[in-house]
């Protein structure tokens, strides 16, 4: 098992014929992902990478039985593409775009109410269940099948943690990037709940950053509801207040937003907190063995 995506997931790519989408769709297919087609409006009926191209997500779902979509369209069109996937009944929607207007996401989340779908991202490297399904842009070779669930806001810091784990022989059930935006599809709690319910996942690493209440809420939820050990790190101890550190969501707007404040609270709530980002792997190894 795994969370959200697995070996039976049937994936379509929205914005399929674009350069990045093409490159990463091929990468995913080489790594065991079942890509069943894609959508590029106006190119319906064509073939791309040996797979059918559709004009609408609705058609793609009807013809291929797709249940997962990777959205590779530019930020200005991404909100519409997400709603199209929601309307077509896609269950897991992965949004790579960095730079979607925040209010677009506010409306998308309203539209998603009651639709029983998971939106991963935006501004995420995606999601990977190593060897079974990858929807995103992460370098697949650093991941390997295993027993640890990984969830992070940052992409490259996710790679960093996974590499540290790999060097110590720890693999992943699934790695989920929830993205660096202030309004995002899926929060930490949703992902922790899924890992807790997944029989294969034995422990979880959660990597957050400055800004917003998500990490502490997740720790609070975990204290009440989680039986599996949780290792946590929050990036940005050295970040100044009031400055947006690259990610749209990474800004310290109050005392509770700082990395240290979050890590202190997480520790109080029973999370195994790592203070040095270079020691995420080692800490995980120690806690989990």
């Amino acid at each position, binding site marked *: 098992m795994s969370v959200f995506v697995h070996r039976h997931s049937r994936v379509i790519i929205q914005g399929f014929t674009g350069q990045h989408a093409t490159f990463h769709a091929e990468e995913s297919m080489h790594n065991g992902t079942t890509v069943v087609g894609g959508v590029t409006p106006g190119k319906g009926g064509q073939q791309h990478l040996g797979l059918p191209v559709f004009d609408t997500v609705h058609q793609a779902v009807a013809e291929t039985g797709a249940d997962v979509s990777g959205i590779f369209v530019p*930020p*200005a069109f991404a909100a519409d593409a997400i709603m199209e996937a929601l309307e077509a009944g896609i269950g897991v929607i992965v949004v790579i775009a960095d*730079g*979607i*207007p*925040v*209010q*677009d*996401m*506010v*409306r998308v*989340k*309203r539209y998603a109410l009651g639709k029983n779908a998971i939106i991963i991202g935006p501004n995420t*490297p995606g999601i990977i269940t190593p060897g079974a399904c990858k929807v995103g*842009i*992460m*370098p697949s070779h*650093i991941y390997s099948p295993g027993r640890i669930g990984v969830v*992070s*806001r*940052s*992409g*490259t*810091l*996710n*790679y*960093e943690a996974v*590499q*540290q784990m790999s*060097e110590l022989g720890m693999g992943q059930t699934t790695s989920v990037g929830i993205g*660096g935006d*202030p*309004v995002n599809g899926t929060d930490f709690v949703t992902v922790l709940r899924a890992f807790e319910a997944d029989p294969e996942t034995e422990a979880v690493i959660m*990597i957050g*950053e*400055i*800004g*917003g*209440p*998500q990490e502490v809420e997740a720790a609070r939820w975990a204290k009440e509801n989680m039986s599996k050990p949780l290792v946590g790190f929050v*990036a*940005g*101890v*050295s*970040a*100044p207040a009031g*400055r947006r*550190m*690259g*990610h*749209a*969501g*990474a800004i310290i707007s*109050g005392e509770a937003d700082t*990395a240290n404040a979050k890590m202190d609270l997480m520790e109080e709530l029973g999370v195994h907190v790592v*203070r*040095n*980002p*270079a*020691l995420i792997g080692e800490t995980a190894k120690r806690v989990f063995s």
Partner: protein
Amino acid sequence: MNIHEYQTKELLRGFGVPVPNGRVAHNVDNAATIAEDLGGERWVVKAQIHAGGRGKGGGVRVASSLEEVRQFTDEMIGTYLVTPQTGEQGRLVQRVLIEQACKINKEYYLGMVIDRATQRITVIASASGGMNIEEVAKTDPDRVIREAVDPAIGLAGFQCRKIAARMGLAGKQIGEAAKIMQALYRCFRDKDALLAEINPLAAIDEGRLMALDAKMSFDSNAMYRHSDIIELRDFDEEDVKEVEASGHGLNYIALDGDVGCIVNGAGLAMATMDAISFHKGRPANFLDVGGGASPEKVGNAFRIVLQDPNVKAILVNIFAGINRCDWIAEGLVQAMRDQDIQVPIVVRLAGTNVEKGAPILKASGFPFIMADNLDDAATKVVAVLEAAA
């Protein structure tokens, strides 16, 4: 993206928010003419800089004569105004807003944000106006009213009346406040704002409500659909190096340490700074080269980092996903050839094409200090600095 108070007020006036009569002045004569045109006996002269806390720094003054309007304008324009938010060096005042002064009976707070907890546009209001709302939230949280807006419905009339009543408004002020809230909401929504603050919203003569100070900031990711707001951007209010960096597709923020950082990805860039701090080093900057970093981009990153004279060593930390280590390595070698780089450089490469990247650095003959992982990199850069000191 932030804009000036006078720009915010013009924008809000267009949406139907009552603001004082006033105009922006660029010099003393200009200021006096505006005051004369506005009429009345007292005027407020307000320095226009993006930082808050202007009143505390002498940037907001009430003039009782045209002479005083001239005098205060003269004292403000061309000087560096220091407020609690500007830092010691202050911010250059290039224009002032001249407004008719009005008698304030009571001050309220009205704001809007995109709240991370509700993930919606949320009204924040309080009967405690004129103060920092975060202070009020800390000392007297019950006095801060929050109301989330359903994006499919918009800010409903009943919500506005509920907020107004809790603010302690009564009679016709309730309807008046509701109109102001809905106007502010329309502006916030239509212009893709991230933050709007009317502080104070003041009850003036006969209880009329008016926005005496206003501040807005906008979502730069949405500015492609708001050419009118982009025009309001004032580059003089932004850090020169940060503007230059963003022109090269780099995300740079200056800090006050001595270890220059060149990293890909915002999260890893923060974590790299944290690792340096963990080893008692002090990062000089945050810099994210982003995805798809070309050799030129790497060169520009070096140029910008080295403009900071405090930088005594550089840590390059690349975990390539979308990026390629060989390209980064070529960029590093090129930068060493093109630029006079005297500081030691610690390099950590990982991810895509790492097996091609390291040999390029080695073959170049430049004295790169190679690191195996993040901890090794942070340790080495701090050690190099200590050895030099």
